[in-house]
């Protein structure tokens, strides 16, 4: 773990400091973005499914100098709370989402505000009451957050983000939570 952290810091430092990575007019460009995520669920939903992990892959269209239109999909797998004794329970989600980012600056370090929404295709084999039942649901997803894009080169960037989500699931158990993401982007 320490090696990974050190390597990450080295990459970030190198990309930020060395001028050999020449800058173009704008860092805001069309991008492919691949992100890993970790979710801490909240509320009644979290009493059963406490955390989640997964990945997004998406394509983004730039509208200089501040805006990015994002489309993404991915895979998210929820984890049961430790004290829940249910075998083979699973709740996985495939998100289909569209949204945008507002970048406050157009520079090597670009803080942003992000909103994204769409549909979650939810596959579950157990409900919140613990009853076994294979079911596929389609529910609205809603997420807002902030983050930082670090442009290591003209064509390669690292993203860090923290988001709050309030996805629909059940009236008394919405799929709310805080999400932390780490991603890499490639300019096309």
């Amino acid at each position: 773990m320490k090696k990974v952290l050190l390597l990450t810091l080295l990459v970030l430092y190198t990309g930020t400091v060395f001028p050999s990575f020449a800058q173009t007019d704008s860092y805001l460009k069309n991008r492919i973005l691949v992100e890993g995520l970790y979710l801490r669920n909240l509320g009644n939903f979290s009493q059963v499914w406490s955390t989640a992990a997964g990945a997004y892959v998406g394509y983004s269209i730039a509208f200089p100098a501040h805006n990015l239109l994002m489309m993404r999909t991915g895979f998210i797998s929820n984890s049961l709370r430790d004290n829940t004794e249910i075998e083979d329970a699973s709740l996985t989600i495939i998100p289909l989402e569209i949204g945008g980012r507002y970048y406050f600056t157009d520079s090597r370090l670009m803080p942003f505000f992000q909103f994204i929404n769409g549909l979650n295709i939810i596959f579950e084999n157990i409900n919140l009451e613990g009853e076994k039942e294979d079911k596929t649901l389609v529910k609205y997803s809603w997420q807002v957050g902030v983050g930082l894009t670090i442009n290591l080169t003209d064509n390669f960037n690292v993203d860090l983000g923290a988001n709050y989500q309030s996805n629909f699931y059940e009236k008394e158990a919405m799929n709310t939570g805080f999400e932390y993401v780490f991603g890499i982007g490639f300019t096309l």
Partner: protein
Amino acid sequence: MKHIHNSKLILTFILLVTTSQLNSQSNSYSYFNSKLLENSNSVISFNNHELKNTSVAFQNSLAFKNNSNQKWGSVNLPPELLNDDFKSWESEKHFWIGVGEIAILEFIPWALAKWIRHWEDPADNWANVSSDTWWRNLSNGWEYDGDNFETNNFAHPYHGALFFNAGRTNGYDFWESTAWALTGSAIWEFFGETFRPAFNDWIYTGVGGVNLGEITYRLSSMVTDNTASGSDRMWSEIFGTLINPVRGFNRAISGEMGQNFPNPEWSRPDDFLITFEAGTRSIDKDGDKTYTDREVEGLFTFNLIYGNRFKAKKPFEYFNFNFGLASGLPHFTTMNSSGFLFGYDLDNKKHRLDVNLDFNYNNLIKEQYTEIDTLYKGFLFGSTQIYPHLLSRFPIGSKTNLVTQFGVNGILMGATPNDYYVDVEGRVYDFGPGVGTRIVAAIQNGIWNYVSLFYYGAWIWTQSEPSDSKHHIHYLVLEAQYPLTSYFSVGFSAGIYWRNSYYENFPDVTKNHPIGRFFFRTAIIDI
């Protein structure tokens, strides 16, 4: 959000603007029937201004001064005294000013509820927020609330229009300002009330606010004349501020109210029309197909068309807006608008593929009290929706055109009655997204629509509790009118609203509400 009732305020704005225009503009004799169908689920006006002889229109136009040679406004200062180098407030972004204004707009209604409003049971005070209620709201997430139709479908969009203008009048463009409306609304929903955040509020405030916000932004910019001075200037600033208080505030703090500089070119549209209707409406209340429980009432409608829909390129360069008051209850019965978002000219202004943002408020539901119960008769329909459509114009004579629309009603959030449910807070209707079709056809001759046909249909899938229903609604109207003079017409319309509601736990319901109208229509302003 349960706090704003601004109908009187809005009505005052509109009347003031209308009055101001009337006082200074009395020579308009060209009339264009922009409004097809009163009480329709969408304003569906056809703008055929471009058919007019523009030079005649210029001469007859009702600018702010009769002796003005310009189509718009009155320059009562010598041009050399205008400060051409003046940098307007909106030419630069003012992020923190906008944030401060959002905070003020959140604080005022919250403070009124917290400290001014009298609560019989203080525990009901939804403004008693704390870190605990914030965390609870974040943890529990969205729900659908139980507010009445007026609060959810009018007060919230108006509040959203103010949020929108915190961005729009601080240098942000239309699309960027949508984020201000949605963010302002989300902040209120999660942190301004003890209630769980209401998803329907967020849509109506955020998206409905964009629609009303851009309309008030453009109307305010139109009536404000930067080149005027003296009392002309004072009144133009007052009217502009009444229409859009946030813009007026920014003009005050930036000093623009006291500067003379050119008006932005976009602020004076190619075409602009206001019409007024007075007449009667007959509606069958119980919806049982017999047309025996009908109610006749007076109906007064204000209609506005901004821009030319066949020329629009930027968001809301064309929009239409109507506002209706009835003599019977509820008095505030309709408010519909439709604004151009983006589109493509397919065939030299004969065929266009456009996408509009629509807002609909149609409240024709009547409460009837019996000894044991309260009955809700009539119907209502509200929505904020996207409307992609094909707009076409087919010449059928030297001056006559058949203008058609065929499109999809993409309802982001719709409201339609539930026959079995009354919420403790007053909601008698269901919320949900929907989709349907809209077909419009009108025969136009010069400035008149002689005959028009309108159909609106939509499925709405209920998402609010109880979410055990779906609704299929239809509205069909045929309208005809005849011009008695060049600026005055008489007409009638006959239509029917019908609804098929399907419930999982109760018997299905079908309602039919025939509607008839007779009206006189006059053009107040035509530029």
